[in-house]
């Protein structure tokens, strides 16, 4: 998982990239915006913003139905994104790429279709102690409905998965392993390929939550051999309301549909309804066409920089950030204290200050971070904290942004009397 790209290979024109994002020119209370909340949602480059406008100016129409020019063009543009994603995640079949409203819906889709059909009383679902609620609540509720059992892979104090007892956690009773590819709180990158091998050896499937990984590094679902992979467009320069569920064709084929309605059927009578072919079986109703079409431009933008490049650049900036934060007395990084197998979601706590006070103070300096439990209350408990402050990086951040964060944190301690 560690990038092989060496430092000298990193080719990122950070000034050009910063200029591509109009919002980064905004002033927040006399300060230039420093956006360090990309783990929540990323900003959009001008190309993506223009593509969205262009869609409505030129081809807006419903897809897969009309026989007119606009409908055909809209359908083609929509399907072009699907083809693009299939290539982006490692060269899968287009029928294996399902559009959803986001990672959350992708995971719920699996829980309510595959889960309902395949999980029975006493079956075991394996999660980890670092899951986002999106990859936790659907499984806990499924387990409740089915009298199934939730097991958890624990984490070490520095925020890595503790695989010492993995053979007693993933067993022949396991039906599914649902694990995040990268923790939204700790930044930890998990060994999905290794876990997939263990899951499959035991006859279980594996779902990886890629919401935080797909935007930041090359993803190859075939190499990892995951059965399901979920991610969101808005965390990778695309619009909100668009997500992807990748699933292996033979598994998707056997899954019942999720939403019922138009587009997902083949033939309908009051006696008998047959389902449409993949992937349309899972795409009932009119989807977020403008969003999906625009997502194509976001993917192209990322590919033009190169996912290897992005990963290498962010790894370096993550190391710089960790180094800077650790220079501040009383500040603790919640998660790995180094940049090995780790992404740029960097959570920290201050021994004296609540994360909400940190966030409010930083906002007064124009710095946007996230504070709270990050939809990971069980993880907060495990880390022995109630909430964290989180700076999360992306391609438009640089060392100057981190220096601004550092300076503001020093000023904050003075302000609250904790020098």
């Amino acid at each position, binding site marked *: 998982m560690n990038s092989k790209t060496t430092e000298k290979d990193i080719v990122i024109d950070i000034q050009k990239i910063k200029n591509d994002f109009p919002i980064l020119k905004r002033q927040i*209370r*006399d300060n230039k915006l420093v956006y360090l909340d990309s783990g929540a949602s990323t900003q959009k480059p001008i190309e993506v913003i223009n593509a969205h406008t262009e869609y409505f100016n030129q081809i807006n129409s419903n897809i897969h139905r009309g026989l007119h020019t606009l409908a055909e063009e809209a359908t083609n543009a929509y399907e072009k994104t699907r083809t693009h994603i299939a290539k982006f995640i490692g060269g899968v079949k287009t029928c294996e790429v399902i559009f959803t409203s986001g990672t959350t819906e992708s995971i719920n889709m699996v829980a309510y279709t595959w889960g309902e059909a395949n999980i029975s009383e006493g079956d075991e679902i394996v999660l980890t102690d670092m899951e986002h609620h999106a990859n936790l609540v659907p499984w806990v509720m499924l387990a409740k409905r089915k009298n199934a059992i939730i097991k958890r892979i624990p984490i070490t104090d520095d925020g890595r998965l503790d695989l010492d007892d993995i053979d007693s956690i993933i067993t022949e009773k396991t039906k599914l392993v649902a694990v995040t590819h990268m923790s939204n709180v700790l930044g930890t990158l998990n060994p999905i390929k290794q876990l997939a091998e263990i899951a499959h050896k035991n006859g279980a499937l594996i779902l990886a939550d890629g919401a935080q990984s797909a935007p930041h590094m090359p993803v190859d679902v075939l190499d990892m051999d995951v059965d399901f992979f979920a991610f969101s467009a808005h965390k990778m320069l695309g619009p909100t309301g668009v997500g992807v569920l990748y699933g292996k064709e033979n598994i998707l084929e056997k899954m019942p549909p999720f939403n019922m309605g138009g587009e997902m059927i083949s033939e309908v009578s009051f006696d008998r309804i047959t389902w449409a072919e993949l992937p349309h079986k899972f795409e009932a109703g009119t989807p977020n066409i403008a969003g999906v079409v625009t997502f194509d431009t976001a993917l192209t933008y990322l590919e033009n920089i190169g996912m290897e490049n992005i990963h290498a650049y962010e790894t370096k900036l993550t190391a710089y950030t960790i180094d800077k934060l650790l220079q501040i007395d009383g500040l603790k990084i919640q998660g790995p204290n180094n940049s090995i197998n780790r992404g740029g979601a960097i959570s920290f706590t201050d021994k004296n*200050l*609540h*994360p*909400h*006070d940190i966030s*409010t*103070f930083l906002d*007064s300096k124009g710095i946007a971070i996230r504070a*709270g*439990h990050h939809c990971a*209350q069980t993880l*907060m408990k495990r880390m022995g*904290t*109630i*909430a964290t402050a989180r700076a999360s990086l992306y391609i438009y951040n640089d060392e100057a942004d981190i220096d601004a964060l550092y300076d503001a944190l020093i000023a904050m301690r003075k*302000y*609250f*009397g904790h020098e």
Partner: protein
Amino acid sequence: MSENLDDMYREIILDHYKAPRGKKPLEDKNVTSDGHNPSCGDELRMELKVDNKNNIADVHVNCKGCAISVASGSMLAEFIKGKSLEEVKAISEQIKKMLKGEESTITEDIGDLDSLKGVRQFPVRIKCALLAWVTLIEGVDKFEGNGTDSSSTTSTE
């Protein structure tokens, strides 16, 4: 420093945050009330000693949370000591209204509590300032319900 920030973190608020009043747990109490805001993780424990004339003889507030929730709890502890339950309920409702930006009919001098007004500019933080007050209301309600030691957990979310 921006004006807004100093509006919320006024001197008085920072003073209460840095040295919260009512820190000492009560040895003799007849109300215990717990408040919790899950999304912030703020936790507040309140103990009251209500005397036989239904006045608050003593109060203890222990808040693990942000500067606003700690300061609000501290101001509460300072303000309600010696007041009757009726007075306390009335002022709590007024503070709630003040924080929510509704018209309040406060005529008396509420002292430090007035500084909580600045929190209104930060809508997501209003629930932090409210925590101590809803915990108090809950505690008083429980006390009046059964007249003995009571425990409850409440939230402003």
